[in-house]
């Protein structure tokens, strides 16, 4: 098993995020040679707390086909979802809008403000927005703008097509 860079096909170091690639020659009827399964993860070679010493794969972080490249950094919508789930002030639904301003990519994440956290004071709302921006930036390693939207206003169950709007001209 290898973790490779989905673009170059080169193997990555343990801990580096990339596409899982499997080679299985023992299966005589259907041997697989560097079969790219499309899931994103990384290999962990540290000893597991349970005592097991063999390498493990980390939590699957997303699909290669969902991956966005923002300012050269790989970003997965699943990371955004995962981060939002840890912030009680906003819902877990989101929409990512990517635009190119000049030579730089700008990533906007639209999130729904929950009923309980609505405050009449603009300052409180700005604080929530800044907190979400901060948390996303820490999780994704890329600067993110956040827009608070009305609850229920983001599209649901629409899959990738509506969750990510990439306006960059290719």
């Amino acid at each position, binding site marked *: 098993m290898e973790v490779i860079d989905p673009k170059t096909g080169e193997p990555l170091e343990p801990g580096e995020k990339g596409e899982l690639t499997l080679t299985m020659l023992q299966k005589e009827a259907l041997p697989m040679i560097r079969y790219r399964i499309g899931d994103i993860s990384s290999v962990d070679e540290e000893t597991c707390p349970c005592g097991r010493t063999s390498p493990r794969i980390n939590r699957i972080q997303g699909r290669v086909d969902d991956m966005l490249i923002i300012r050269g950094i790989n970003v997965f919508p699943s990371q955004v979802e995962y981060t939002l789930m840890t912030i009680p002030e906003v819902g877990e639904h989101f929409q990512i809008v990517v635009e190119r301003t000049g030579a730089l990519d700008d990533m906007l994440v639209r999130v729904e403000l929950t009923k309980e956290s609505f405050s*009449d004071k*603009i300052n409180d*709302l700005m604080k929530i927005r800044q907190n979400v921006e901060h948390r996303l930036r820490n999780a994704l390693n890329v600067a993110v703008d956040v827009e608070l939207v009305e609850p229920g*206003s983001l599209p649901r169950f629409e899959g990738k097509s509506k969750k990510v709007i990439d306006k960059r001209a290719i």
Partner: protein
Amino acid sequence: MDTKKYVIKQISIFSENRPGRLAAVAQALGEEKINILAFSIAEANGFGVIRALVDHPEKAYKKLSSLGYNVAFTDVIAVQMKDQPGGLYDIAKVLGDSGINIEYSYAYSGKKAAVLILRVDQVEDAIEKIQGAGATLLEHTVFH
């Protein structure tokens, strides 16, 4: 002193900052035959808060909540001002001198009087100070 009767329930609505949002809120209130007596919009980056005094706050809250809006009640006070130069100064000075901070405010100049609506950090204190200075506060029954 009974300060409760001077506490007015303002309805606050979270809204995205884009065309048609105010129309949607106003239409919902109109359909329920709710009259808006005073209102203002505060805007921030990408969103805004609509604040209004209406004649039936509970009904407005229910209607807007059922439509999925984020709605909250906020306690405000309404002070009658002299509808002439210096009217606002008189009230603002009382609050300033008493160390009461105005979080936000809006006003209207009606047929009967000019009215200043205030959201302050210490509501009861403000009511006492304003009355102590001889200014008139409007009771909530004036609105709803």
